[in-house]
């Protein structure tokens, strides 16, 4: 059952002019969250902005005794709520409803995990890589950003034993271009007999490309879709995505309840706005 907590900001770490990480005191949400789940955030009291916005749980936070104390959000300043989240001070409180949604399925060895992230789409992979490490799954993060300065938490992922493959739009770090470049190379190089599960989160065009690319190598991709949501609980039917399963008709299903994680092969990408 999701909870709505008035989570206190423990720290607000600005990673760049646009990105920040908000550490929030919310042990129940942190304890309950599974990789790929999200919270609905209301950044300020009052009616402007009115609706909450969905955010992936970024990290699960622990104290020195390893007790869970809360979670963090990876935020990119683009709109009203994200500007507010960028400007929060320690001690401020924001309402967080969650955790919500269908999480990633966590694979088992010997299957390997390849996580593909674009920009703020890095968010769900911190918790996923932590769980993957607990299961001793060999994990790679393919991570693309605009420039080298837009690639964050690389050391943290390395500490979780994650192998990194990077790409930037301007070529300042890793491959020059989309994250699909190192991904395509890796898919071509790996023995087809090696079982691999792909996970993708980022811009829709990126997830579509990743899903299609993986499919050409017979690999399945779980994608975490980012739709506009009104409620996060299935009440409003605003966050629907076109899904086709088992050769049946395309149906608009709620990404808050059936997702946000979907099998990329079931998403009717050409109909996804």
């Amino acid at each position, binding site marked *: 059952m999701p909870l709505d907590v008035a989570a206190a900001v423990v720290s607000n770490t600005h990673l760049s002019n646009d990105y920040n990480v908000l550490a929030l005191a919310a042990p129940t949400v942190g304890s309950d969250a599974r990789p790929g789940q999200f919270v609905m955030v*209301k950044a300020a009291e009052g009616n402007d902005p009115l609706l*909450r916005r969905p955010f992936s749980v970024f990290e699960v936070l622990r104290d020195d005794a390893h007790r869970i104390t809360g979670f963090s959000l990876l935020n990119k300043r683009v709109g009203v709520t994200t500007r507010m989240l960028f400007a929060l001070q320690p001690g401020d409180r924001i309402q967080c409803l969650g955790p919500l949604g269908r999480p990633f399925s966590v694979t088992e060895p010997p299957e390997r995990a390849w996580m593909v992230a674009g920009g703020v789409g890095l968010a769900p992979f911190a918790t996923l890589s932590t769980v993957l490490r607990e299961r001793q799954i060999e994990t790679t993060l393919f991570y693309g950003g605009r420039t080298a300065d837009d690639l964050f938490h690389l050391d943290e992922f390395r500490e979780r034993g994650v192998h990194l493959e990077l790409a930037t739009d301007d070529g300042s770090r890793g491959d020059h271009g989309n994250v699909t470049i190192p991904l395509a190379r890796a898919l071509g190089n790996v023995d087809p007999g090696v079982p691999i599960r792909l996970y993708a989160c980022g811009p829709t065009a990126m997830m579509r490309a990743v899903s299609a690319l993986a499919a050409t190598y017979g690999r399945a991709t779980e994608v975490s879709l980012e*739709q506009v949501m009104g409620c996060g*609980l299935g*009440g409003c039917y*605003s966050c629907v995505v076109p899904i086709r399963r088992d050769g049946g008709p395309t149906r608009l299903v709620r990404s808050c*309840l059936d997702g946000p994680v979907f099998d990329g092969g079931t998403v009717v990408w050409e109909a996804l706005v």
Partner: protein
Amino acid sequence: MSVDLSVDIGSLHLRNPLIAASGCFGYGVEYADVVDLSTLGGVAVKGLFLDEREGHPPARIVETPSGMLNAIGLQGIGVRRFVDEKLPQLRAHGAVVIVNICGSTIDEYAEVARILDDADGVGAIEVNISCPNIKEGGMMFGCSIQGTYDVVAAVRRVTQRPVVPKLTPNVTDVASFAVAARDAGADAVSLVNTFLAMAIDVETRRPKLSNVLGGLSGPAIRPIAVRMVHECRQAVNLPIIGMGGIMTASDALEFIIAGASAVQVGTANFVDPFVWNKLLTGLTDYLQRHALAKISDLVGTLDISGKDHDV
């Protein structure tokens, strides 16, 4: 002092005046983990046609100042699946169920109502003649006095359950539609549905909603909705279910004092699914503070003495 929050909408008894608004609460069962449905006055489920409907493609909502536009397009599972799959669950949760019905034709409204009349656990039928987002049915009937009368009369003929037409605010004189609904045999009216509205992305010069137009809800519309409830109360002696941007108990009380016997809460539930207890507590506190034993005694107690009312 304990207070009595129960109200009656025709023959329908509600334990309190708070109803989850249609289109804002799924089929109710989605919220059963978060809200004890039996503590609500009622649950108005998402509008149902005879058959399944896909609704509009995204983008389906956009936020606006103190409000939101929606153009969902009445995506739904159809009345038969609702009766088979959802209604038993709602009964098990102890919910008072108000089923919102739609139709492309008057015959379809009547057929949906007939199916519900046979079903177990339908507290009332809310007749949606006011959805601004669909081409056929919806507001097409609700913007015509004759259309309103004909739909309500057709539903009235096939069911003994309380019939509650949901009125659109997108008319010049909403009270005349309440009169038509009464004349056609309605047990109550609910108002308002959303206001037809539009938002434009100036960078692309494209409408922000896929359907171009949508319905405006939220606190932005509340003063207009309160005025319309007031007008209907003056025009007809029929129970009114008021709604439009209720976020707090005080907001709900405005509608009740203006003449609503019960209220529906929609957008606020998106913002805070735990809003119900806060509203109930607020209503109880108000009654105690004003030494009122029953909330039904507060309905329509607006005092306009000494105030001019020119328009």
